[in-house]
């Protein structure tokens, strides 16, 4: 193999050919509210941890839906569970329980 000094790059496109997402389905079983998210961002806007970090529950939910949890699980480590998101969610999603449930379904990668 020749080293040209550059090479192929993996694509960032969310390729959803296999739409099954068992982890998300399990999460939906535990906290059905997760399906109600309309991605309005109220949770992110009010987030106590969001003042200091990149924490965005909206993004977390989306990434789980898309099977890209790796990108956002670290955000959840910053959550203080203060519950403000619970109060502002227009869809009445039980956000705290959702966050706790995510921790039970998804596993953080060890190497971080």
């Amino acid at each position: 193999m020749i080293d040209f000094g550059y090479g192929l790059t993996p694509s960032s496109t969310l390729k959803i050919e296999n739409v099954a997402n068992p982890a998300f389905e399990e999460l939906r079983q535990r906290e059905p509210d997760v399906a109600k998210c309309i991605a309005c961002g109220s949770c992110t806007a009010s987030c106590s941890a969001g003042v200091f970090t990149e924490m965005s529950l909206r993004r977390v939910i989306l990434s789980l839906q898309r099977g890209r949890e790796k990108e956002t699980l670290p955000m959840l480590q910053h959550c203080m569970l203060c519950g403000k998101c619970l109060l502002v969610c227009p869809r009445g999603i039980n956000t705290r329980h959702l966050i706790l449930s995510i921790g039970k379904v998804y596993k953080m990668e060890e190497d971080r």
Partner: protein
Amino acid sequence: MSQNVVVIGGGPAGIEASRRLRDLGYTPILIEKTPVLGGHLARWDRLFPEGIEARTVLDPMVADLDGIKYFTETEVSSINRLKDTWVVKLSNGLSAQVRAILLTTGFDLFKAEKKEEYGYGIYERVITNADLEDWFKSGAAPQFDAVNVIGFVHCVGSRDEKAGNRQCSKVCCVTAVKQACEIKEKFPDATVYCFYMDLRMFGRKYEDLYLKAQKDYGIRFVRGRVSEVSEDNDGHLFVKAEDTLFGKPLKIKMDLLVLMAGMAPAADNHQLARMVNIQTGEDGFYLPQSIIGSPCTSSREGIFFAGAATGPKTLPETLSEAASAALAIDRYLKTPQKK
């Protein structure tokens, strides 16, 4: 003999307005260019938000046409001003002299093939919302193998300057959600996506429908306009959009894609407008005197509007506008003629 009023366009607006005019003691002459009355409603299977059958709305209307002269497969050949009346010549050779004309010409379904990048008319598995209603209504499903992933594309020909339609068509969002639920009932194991820019759930119970679609039907909503559709060698589709909330390009392999074709101004609007010397807006819909205050009256004496002829409207809005147009005509005809 009671006074005649010409109503042009036999969709829900035209039928409803004719019935109201008849009830007020006039003889409406209802002109429809297609063979059947009912307009787009006649083609539709079920109506949002509750999924009642369209025929339960239309059938009683069509069954109650006593006292209304109606002509199907008939077009307007010419309209001329004669003193304070309009002389309307029809393609069937008849003509009528009336003081008031009601334009209920409705809308044209946007021609989805104009959005070339979506491949309607090129890819077999790309269909429109109207095709889907045909399918639901006739029960004759297109013959595709396993339908596992289905997409709905909102805003096809709406809010799109390139497609020549800048306006929002108002009904597609909720129609898409309705159809997504319906198709999920037909294919319970399928994954259904809706690609939207904004979800405009403005009406009563619309938001409930949306919530149900999320919670009970598990419809997946992706905020992002579909950018292009291409076809695999086995006929399946690749749909590309950006998942804008996630900020990443998205590519999904799909078995069926439904384009939510929007409301475009009716093609004959220009011609009719020229006949009676009124204006259409730059969007192609008729311009009423005031969109808010007097949506049914035109800038010309004796010319009235109702329904989607003046812009996208929902069915209940159309029906109530038809009623108010009848009242506006009644008031106009009761005003003594200026001599």
